[in-house]
């Protein structure tokens, strides 16, 4: 291919979203995707070595969705997350040390060890928390959007949920309420193809979760969830629509979790070939290729970011591991607020 032919071709294929992101913002997005990947690999390693307790749900392979959705958000915007929520938390700006300390059940964790992997939250940055109940976060996000509308903050709320939640009543009630009240909320379905072992094709009567948007009078958008630019573009459109008072959007990001559902998963419901095919669509590798191809970052810079995150995660694991256990005398602390402390 000649340079004469290739120049317009690169220009034509350059996703528009990069026109509104500085190179630093794009590289920061890449950094966050690496942080998610490394955090979860560290969590997995910690479990395999017998250093952690309880359960965890890994989102390895889904990083572009979490980060792409959060790119247009500020700390004033809220998210609700899922049991598979490490990625959302990091994408929304959480720090790795208190996250990992929470994963280990330590007092230095975001939830002081009371929540664990399934409840990590960071309210200061608008993360209202991961949720152990499938569909539990959707109505709460609608409430946060109602609150933003009433307080005229201009903020939006984003509800992350999986394909498994799209058959819960909470999904349907939340979409309907958000639409009749035209609330600034974005519903983001991370369709990773399986609700535990239940394939989306077996669980859901429509081809796309996004098809359900029509029943609630809102736009439904399907995007390649392993493509950062596609997700970010959809998120910009939906959040701008929400901020303009035009109401909610349902985004369905098609993606895949390459790890099992949780620790108990023996992968009996899918084939190795399927997993390998999706691994070939790894969102981080694709993002790095695109960054280099578009000249946003050099190969050296991209490699540097991965190495920096590697070190950052090592430090976070060490710091988190040094965090003390909660005091057993305080097992019932924070069930209620101290009297007279309502904000």
């Amino acid at each position, binding site marked *: 291919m000649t340079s004469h032919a290739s120049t317009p071709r690169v220009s034509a294929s350059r996703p528009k979203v990069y026109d509104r992101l500085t190179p630093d913002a794009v590289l920061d997005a890449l950094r966050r995707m690496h942080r998610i990947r490394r955090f979860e690999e560290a969590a997995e390693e910690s479990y395999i070595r017998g250093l952690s307790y309880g359960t965890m749900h890994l989102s390895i392979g889904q990083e572009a969705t979490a980060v792409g959705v959060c790119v247009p958000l500020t700390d004033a915007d*809220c998210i*609700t997350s899922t049991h598979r929520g490490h990625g959302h938390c990091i994408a929304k700006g959480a720090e790795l040390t208190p996250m990992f300390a929470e994963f280990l059940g330590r007092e230095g*964790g*975001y*939830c*002081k*060890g*009371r*929540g664990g992997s399934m*409840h990590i*939250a960071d*309210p*200061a940055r608008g993360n*209202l*928390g991961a*949720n*152990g*109940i499938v569909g*539990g976060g*959707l*109505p*709460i*996000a*609608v*409430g*946060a*959007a*109602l*609150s*933003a509308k*009433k*307080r005229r903050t201009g903020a939006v*709320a984003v509800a992350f949920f999986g394909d498994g939640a799209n058959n819960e*009543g*909470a999904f349907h*009630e*939340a979409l*309907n*309420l958000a639409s*009749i009240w035209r609330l600034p909320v974005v519903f983001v379905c991370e369709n990773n193809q399986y609700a535990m072992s239940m394939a989306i094709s077996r669980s859901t009567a429509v081809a796309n979760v996004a098809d359900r948007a029509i029943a609630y009078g809102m736009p439904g958008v399907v995007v390649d969830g392993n493509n950062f630019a596609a997700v970010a573009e959809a998120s910009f459109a939906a959040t701008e629509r929400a901020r303009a008072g035009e109401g909610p959007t349902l985004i369905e990001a098609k993606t895949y979790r390459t790890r099992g559902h949780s620790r108990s998963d023996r992968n009996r419901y899918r084939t190795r070939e399927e997993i390998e095919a999706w691994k070939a669509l790894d969102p981080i590798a694709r993002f790095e290729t695109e960054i280099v191809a578009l000249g946003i970052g050099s190969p050296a810079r991209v490699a540097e970011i991965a190495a920096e995150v590697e070190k950052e995660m090592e430090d976070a694991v060490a710091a988190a591991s040094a965090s003390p256990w909660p005091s057993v005398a305080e097992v*019932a*602390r*924070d*069930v*209620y*607020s101290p009297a007279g*402390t*309502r*904000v």
Partner: protein
Amino acid sequence: MGARELSYAEAIREALAIALAGDERVFLMGEDIGVYGGAFQVTGDLVDRFGEERVMDTPISELGGAGVAVGAALTGMLPVYEFQFSDFSMLAMEQIVNQAAKLRYMLGGAVQVPVVFRMPTGSGLGGAAQHSQSIEAWYAHVPGLKVVEPSTPEDVKGMLLAAINDPDPVIVFEHKLLYKMKGPVPEGRYETPLDKAAIRREGRDLTIVATGVMAHRALEAAESLANEGIGAEVIDLRSLRPIDKPAIIESVKKTARLLAVYEGVKTLGIGAEVSAIVAESEAFDYLEAPILRLGGVEAPIPYSPVLEKVAVPQVDDIVASARRLARGQV
């Protein structure tokens, strides 16, 4: 100047109006609470006075609606959500029990959920099995919730205002038979504590601990018992979580006999907790008779009025049990 009287429903409406006028973060949600005025005419004309954004008609969508209230409470608002019947709250239990009650704890104290859920409760209006239940004990079993059941117009106004001003989720049970009951209600804003029982009548021979409409039946029974020379002390629990243990213990130390009366199904209900509070305390040593419980029958609430009446304790039942207890016939 004679004390001003309001109905229980009017007292609730007055509390809501004071809260709405006093803090713009307060808003109401619920089915048919707008122009309809609420299924029990509690919200009445509030939508005319405060507008549709403050008094929000909510679709029949309890899970979603309750969750929206939880999310709004998490992010700076003070929602008051009316369930049309407490029975319908089961559709929203996920948001009440898994979310509202637990979020503060799960998140290490980083958030508050200052939401109020109002729940019309109890039988006596022919509502049958799905519109008449008394499920207070279910919610009172959940750490993170506060559960109250005011029995007078004065208390429901003060406790509702306290609930709205409370940092944590509060469930207010309102017995449907009380909505039209009148009683003195102080003017203006005041708060009634969410953790204190009220001694409605003093007596030396036995303690009757009752909730909601049963507090009224216990008082009526106490009148009748007094004619027989039996002095019944009547404690209106008012709060189920937290429960006022000292009030129960001190009373039983004085009377040496305990009868717990509640409308919910007898087994594993409020009476079990009241009994255990005495059994586990120094009051146990003062007991001169076994503890008795009077609760609902082990069946759904029936429709037929003759059956509905016998399904929950009535005044005569309380008199009979109290008499046996006071006369050592247990």
